[in-house]
């Protein structure tokens, strides 16, 4: 082997495995299933609450600590149509995230991976989130 040949060989070895490797298939090639939806919903509701939910929580605590005038501003904002939309949205995000989060606890111990069981709970978790949200607001508004 000549020196240029040897250099080419070493270079090829260094790049081995970095070109034309098979890529992991991405979202668009999969047939959609409820397990994919519940996974994405878990992330969206969680990260949504991290911004909107915690902001409202701090506003509520800050308004209470600030005195009656600041609390009046908070309650005015939260009882506007947009305010109710935000509060209902946060409560829905919480109950949905709670349902899919408890599903994660079962998956963590290795349960619920059978196709039928996985499909069933992937459908039930978002449904449970909506049902609990309706029940919560019914309790608040109808008492």
């Amino acid at each position, binding site marked *: 082997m000549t020196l240029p040949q040897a250099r080419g060989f070493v270079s090829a070895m260094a790049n081995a495995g970095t070109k034309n490797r098979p890529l992991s298939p991405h979202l668009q090639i999969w047939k959609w299933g409820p397990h994919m939806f519940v996974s994405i919903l878990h992330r969206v509701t*969680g990260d949504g*609450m991290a911004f909107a*939910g915690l902001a409202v*929580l701090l506003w509520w*605590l800050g308004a*209470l*600590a600030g005195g009656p005038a600041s609390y009046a501003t908070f309650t005015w904002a939260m009882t506007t149509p947009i305010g109710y939309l935000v509060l209902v949205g946060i409560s829905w995000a*919480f109950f949905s995230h709670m349902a899919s*989060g408890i599903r994660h606890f079962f998956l963590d111990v290795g349960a619920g991976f059978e196709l039928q069981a996985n499909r069933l709970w992937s459908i039930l978790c978002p449904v449970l989130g909506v049902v609990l949200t309706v029940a919560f607001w019914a309790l608040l508004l109808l*008492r």
Partner: protein
Amino acid sequence: MGNGTSIGRVRGLGSAKGGVHHWLLQRFTAIGNLLSVLFLIVSLVLLPDYSYGTMVEWIARPVPAVAMILLVVTTFWHARLGLQVLVEDYLHDHANKFAAIAALNLAACGGIAFGVFCIVRIALGAHA
């Protein structure tokens, strides 16, 4: 990361070594969230009204005050861990990722400090 030897090309690309710790803390704080937020939800359902006087009288009591302090700590911690995963999944540039994680840590610590301070202020009667 060099492009010479095999070891040079893969160095720094392996696991971060803290993954299990992050994963476990996400679960521990999830349990904390479950308990503390359900405490808040049940309390809101049981409270007679949401006037200033009623809310302050409720949150100033020892058990609700401590529960709300724990709620602020556990939810912000959990959110910080969750948003870190979001940053790591969608920000691929090292500098942007570092800046986002740094901002996230500041926001989470600031949120916890503000929330806990507000509750302590109400509970110790310094409000209004």
